[in-house]
């Protein structure tokens, strides 16, 4: 048993146990399990791509990408542009992810250069870069000259803090080949998209460049002695990570049904970091499998604990508070236990 726990890593073991306990409790207290599972599957698809953004940055040695918020605001910018151009449905979605690419390349390169300039302090730098960019964009959302009635405040200047995507890209992925197994709804398109993204990232890690980036992240000096341009690898990795963040938020928004601007992206990096760490990654090693396991465990515990807690403690906003406690607790725990599960 002890070696089994060591093999899969204690955080992963603990979270799996917690998820099972919660699901069993849900059945015991009479919560419709179909609803819980529907929620779980959807959340995995929603958050998956953002979590995937952690893989290239960790592999390149720059640590978990706390500045994935850069990618997120770029994705939001691309999505709002698509709406401004009056695009709807799949076209709007495709336009947004296409537009996010050049934006991510430019901004990702700048961000990568910043990281290369301050090696050794990447985690702190990326956290605060992420915070700063969100605040900077708060100004941008006000001054941006968009006129779409969906997004603008009815009076005054700037875009609304939250607006619905009902008429544009709401569930364009989720509803693709959508079907039901009993009570459980399967958002096929969303899951396919997530797995396709996983496959692409995995393929990249198996490529010549991906291998060089990975070994460079594990042992800088070794890679240099094998003629690897470490700095270039880190730039590429962070461009990819930024782009995945951008695509991730577009996928998230279409499933969620709303776009949230201003300070909403501020804390979005943390659940993503926590998920990949719980999946078995460390601050210096990450694989695509860690993302899949991590996002299932993290989102699973988060989504299923809510209705269960509501049932057990049925007053006021206890469930909401508990959700915050659980989420931040998991993040904190994951950050302190960054080993195991290779």
């Amino acid at each position, binding site marked *: 048993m002890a070696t089994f726990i060591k093999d899969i890593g204690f955080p992963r073991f603990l979270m799996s146990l917690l998820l099972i306990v919660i699901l069993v409790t849900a059945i015991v207290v009479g919560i419709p399990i179909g609803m819980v599972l529907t929620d779980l599957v959807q959340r995995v698809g929603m958050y998956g791509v953002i979590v995937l953004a952690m893989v290239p940055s960790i592999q390149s040695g720059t640590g978990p990408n706390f500045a994935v918020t850069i990618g997120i605001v770029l994705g939001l910018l691309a999505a709002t542009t698509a709406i401004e151009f009056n695009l709807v449905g799949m076209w709007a979605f495709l336009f947004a992810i296409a537009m996010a690419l050049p934006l991510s390349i430019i901004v990702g390169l700048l961000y990568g250069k910043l990281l290369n300039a301050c090696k050794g302090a990447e985690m702190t730098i990326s956290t605060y870069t992420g915070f700063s960019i969100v605040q900077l964009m708060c100004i941008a959302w006000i001054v941006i000259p968009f006129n779409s009635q969906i997004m603008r405040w009815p009076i005054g200047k700037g875009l609304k803090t939250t607006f619905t995507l009902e008429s544009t890209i709401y569930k364009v992925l989720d509803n693709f080949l959508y079907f039901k197994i009993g009570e459980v709804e399967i958002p096929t398109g969303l899951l396919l998209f997530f797995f396709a993204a996983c496959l692409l990232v995995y393929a990249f890690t198996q490529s*010549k460049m991906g291998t060089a980036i990975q070994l460079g992240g*594990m*042992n800088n000096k*070794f890679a240099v002695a*094998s*003629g*690897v341009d470490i700095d270039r690898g880190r730039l590429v990795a962070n461009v990819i990570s930024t782009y995945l963040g951008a695509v991730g938020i577009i996928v998230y928004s279409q499933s969620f049904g709303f776009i949230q601007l201003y300070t909403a992206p501020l804390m979005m990096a943390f659940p993503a970091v926590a998920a990949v760490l719980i999946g078995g990654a460390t601050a210096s090693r990450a694989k695509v499998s860690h993302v899949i396991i991590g996002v299932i465990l993290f989102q699973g515990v988060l989504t299923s604990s809510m209705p269960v807690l509501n049932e057990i403690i049925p007053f006021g906003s206890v469930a909401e508070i508990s959700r915050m406690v659980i989420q931040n607790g998991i993040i904190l725990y994951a950050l302190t236990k960054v080993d195991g599960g290779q």
Partner: protein
Amino acid sequence: MDKEYLLEMKGITKSYYGNTVLKNVDLSIKPGEIHCLMGENGAGKSTLMNILFGMNVIHSTGGFEGEIFFDGEKRDVRSSFDAMNLGIGMVHQEFMLIPDYSITENIKLNRELTKDNFVSRLFGPRLKTVEYAKMGRDARKALDKVDMNIDEWIRVAGLPVGYMQFIEIAREIDKTGIKFLVFDEPTAVLTESEASNLLRIMRKLADSGIAILFITHRLDEVIEISDNITVLRDGELVAKKKTSETTSREIAELMVGRKIELSGKEKKDIDRTKDPILELKDFKVKMPGEEVKGINLKLYEGEILGIGGLAGLGKLGISNGIMGLYPTSGDIILRGEKITNPLTKEMLEKRIAFVSEDRKEVGLVIDASIELNTVFTAMNINGEYLKDYKFFTLRDKKRIKERAEQMIKDLDIRCTNSKQMVGNLSGGNQQKVCIARALTQNPEIILVSEPTRGIDIGAKKIVLDLLKKLNKDYNMTIIMTSSELNELRGISDRIAIVTEGKIAGILQPEDSDANFGLLMAGKSIEEDRGDRDGNIH
């Protein structure tokens, strides 16, 4: 016991985990004597000093056998505090000074003179007032003893290294009742005039009755200053001599000795009339701790060139410089092509492979599999072991596995399978993986640095035999850098000895021990045998 000796160490034997590093070593020193302790790297000098100072590394590994007498009594030194209380001090090779403190504060560090005040009477001695004036006077006295007329209140930061060395000495002699001082290679970092100044001070201290144990590699200094000499080799006492009755040549011979017979290397005919495959011209490398200060060297196709010399004097810098891992100046001429400021990638592409002396940091990725470690350089440089899918390429798992398994078989790498993490292998097997990586790159020239460092004797033999085989069967040109002179002599066609960042001379493997010893100790060989290429400096 004999009262005339201040320090006597008798029958000292010490082993680390079954590996004996000192065997029945004696050392005795009289008051007022300057005694030199000589030996190559790894001869056991530091271990002997660690025992004398009761360092933790000794006691945590099972202690030692033998007895220490100091001042006529048997002593049990359990810590450096015990040593200090006995009156034994050490002047370190690296300076242990606090840059932002003044000279006085450094000299009196942790031994500050204090007097009681109101607060300290209430709350204890930690809050006593420091008596700066008195400390300054003491420091002045100590500095005068070492002939330094520098202001005792100047901050240490920014002083020349020579001064720092003397401050270290002043600190030791300021300690009350100091009777015995150990100087651990004090002249290594000093300029010539500073060094001669230091030797003068040592003589002065010895004349005042302090016994001095002097550890150095510089034979000139030894002959100049010491009264007696003890030579260690491979943990054994090989000689005790009066300096007046010996010569530097004899000492050099004793230090080097001959440990293994030079078998297995048949003389190879190297055609040295052709242009060299690799030539270095006024080549300098800024590698910290192993700086190369301008060398000229020719490497001919198909030969094994050994590079020897003591640690820290630049021999490792040469290969690292050729690979472009540290900033260089001067020219590399590779197959007739001139290269200045080599780039690592470019050198690898020109089919030079490098096995680093730093196995864990540079040579391997500890957390990656044998497979990946073996093929990575070849993949990155030659684009091999990849499958091409037109728009992108992926690692060719099948061929990678085949290659790794072939290497495991050829080099006898002991592992569970080719996917095992190299971090779980023993040192010798890790070294074989390093060599496997270099070979997979399909090189023409291979630079191997310290290939046998930290590996057991069986693995050593396999590694050396492998290098010989590569040279013989594939006519591979090899530069092997090693601290183990006897290994170099067993495998090389020629051996360049590096001291002070320059080539002291190039010898044949069968040259006399004395010649090797003299070159390593920074002396020129009297009768100029030279090498046949005129590369002597």
